């Protein structure tokens, strides 16, 4: 095989796959729009934001409080998972003896693979009763945040550890030669060098938290209201779909697809903002 043509072929093939991935999103978006069209077309999109409550069978499709709830759970989960996850990655890369580091990595890989149902089941039978004992009803915003943080943690740690591991040894050795302390090397050299990879991991974790369905459904309480109290229940957009899709018809069904569409648009905004922030930092 001649080198050039193999190279060209590879370039073409890989470009094809990359375009395919982008097309997939268009396909999913198109599907969501076409399924929610009946409500969108009826001018319902304004009602989604204006109406404060969600009683689809009575024609009221207010999604706004679910948007806030979705954001609150995701942000809360990330606030917990990011420091813990990054600390775990630093532990694995700089503090743990090799055998322990390996063990730690496999523990996290395992956590990443535990099905959301199992997290949800554990939350429902252990965590929620625990919270209910001193702050009923137990199924609440805080329960959702804790479970989501636990689920996002492996993503943060695994990606951050990979990014830290990719920092050239010579850089770290140079810093050590300058007499920097271990903390100084980590915070001053390693973490900044690995920043891009870590941010990508955080974004991935945030997206996972936004898109998670089953576990949140089992612990969040699913009452449609604004997330004003950590110990009161909330309903997130994904849970809304999962709870009601099985029994929805007509406009109700279209309204559920609209919540999916809204969530996807939120994710799009978030990802776009993250990408812009990343670009700006790189330009500086």
């Amino acid at each position, binding site marked *: 095989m001649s080198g*050039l043509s193999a*190279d060209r072929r*590879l370039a073409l*093939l*890989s470009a094809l*796959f*990359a375009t*395919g*991935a*982008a097309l*997939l*999103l268009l*396909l*999913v978006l198109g*599907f*969501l729009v076409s399924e929610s069209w009946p409500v969108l077309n009826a001018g319902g999109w304004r009602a989604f934001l204006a109406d404060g409550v969600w009683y689809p069978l009575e024609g009221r499709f207010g999604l706004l409080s679910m948007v806030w709830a979705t954001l609150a759970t995701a942000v809360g989960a990330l606030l917990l998972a990011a420091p*813990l996850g990054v600390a*775990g990655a630093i532990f*694995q890369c700089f*503090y*743990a003896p090799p055998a322990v580091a390996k063990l*730690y990595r496999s523990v*996290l*890989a*395992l*956590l*990443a*693979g*535990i*099905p959301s*149902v*199992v997290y949800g*089941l*554990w939350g429902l039978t252990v965590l929620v009763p625990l919270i209910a004992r001193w702050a009923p009803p137990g199924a609440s915003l805080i329960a959702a945040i804790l479970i989501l943080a*636990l689920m996002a943690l*492996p*993503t943060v*740690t695994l*990606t951050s550890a*990979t*990014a830290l591991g*990719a920092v050239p040894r010579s850089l770290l050795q140079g810093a050590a030669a300058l007499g920097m302390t*271990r*903390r100084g090397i980590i915070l001053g050299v390693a973490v900044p060098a690995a920043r891009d990879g870590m941010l990508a991991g955080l974004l*991935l974790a945030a*997206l*996972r938290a*936004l*898109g998670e*369905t*089953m576990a949140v459904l089992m612990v969040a309480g699913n009452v449609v209201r604004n997330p004003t109290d950590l110990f009161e229940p909330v309903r997130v957009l*994904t849970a809304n*779909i*999962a709870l009601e*899709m099985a029994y929805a018809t007509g406009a109700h069904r279209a309204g559920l697809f609209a919540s999916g569409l809204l*969530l*996807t648009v939120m994710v799009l905004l978030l*990802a776009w903002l*993250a*990408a812009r922030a990343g670009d700006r930092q790189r330009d500086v």
Partner: protein
Amino acid sequence: MSERIFTAAIWAAALLVVGVFCFLLGDLVRQGAPHLSWRFLLTAPADAGRSGGISSIIISTLLILAVAMAVAVPSGLGAALWLAEYARGKRAARRVIRLSLDVLAGVPSIVFGLFGNAFFCIFLGLGFSILSGGLTLACMVLPILIRTSEAGLSAVTEEWRRGAAALGMTRAAALWHILLPAAAPAITAGLILGMGRAIAETAALLFTSGYVDRMPDSLYDSGRSLSVHVYDLSMNVAGGDVAAHASALVLVSLIVVLNGGALVLSDRWATRKITVS
């Protein structure tokens, strides 16, 4: 002094994670282990899953995963390659594709399930089948695989690329010998995350690979995955909790085995680089 506090904080964070993990897994083992036996693994489910075993469900799970990975890994690596290697001049295109990948990663699994049902099951006529389920999962894990692999490939230093070019290696050869092995740890991390996400998926599979708990004859048959089985037993079947925990334990063990396999493969690949170059 602050050095010591920092060290303590790092250790505390790591221990906390391990502690919660032990809590969760210990609970699972305590409730599920007594029900585990060879018979449980080797017989078909009966009485809605309350009795009998999970043999057919293990097979369906593995087949769904195999389809998903057979599709997602090559195409994911391909796309990552383009983003990291070939798209250097094309900033706009690269940005659009990256953005769409990030959005895809955030699409909730249940939306993927409904999409997969409409596209693979109905539009492509695959019906409720292992194939539909696997393809839907492939769509779900693709962004994770691409983003982590791309990060790994981009992290390979420029000198290595130039060195390879100086040696007269074609780009394909440089890729195979230098870039991919160097990026192997990142690719493996992506693979582990992706497999974990795929095997743990419930909502997307309920609508695509389905609910049938018979032993599948072909990829066109509907087959229930372990995660769907766990969900149904714990949420929908009275008295299914014990079997649900035991099935969840099997699922977790399966993940341990698969992760172990992925790590061994990646280590091998990473060391091959040294022996060849």
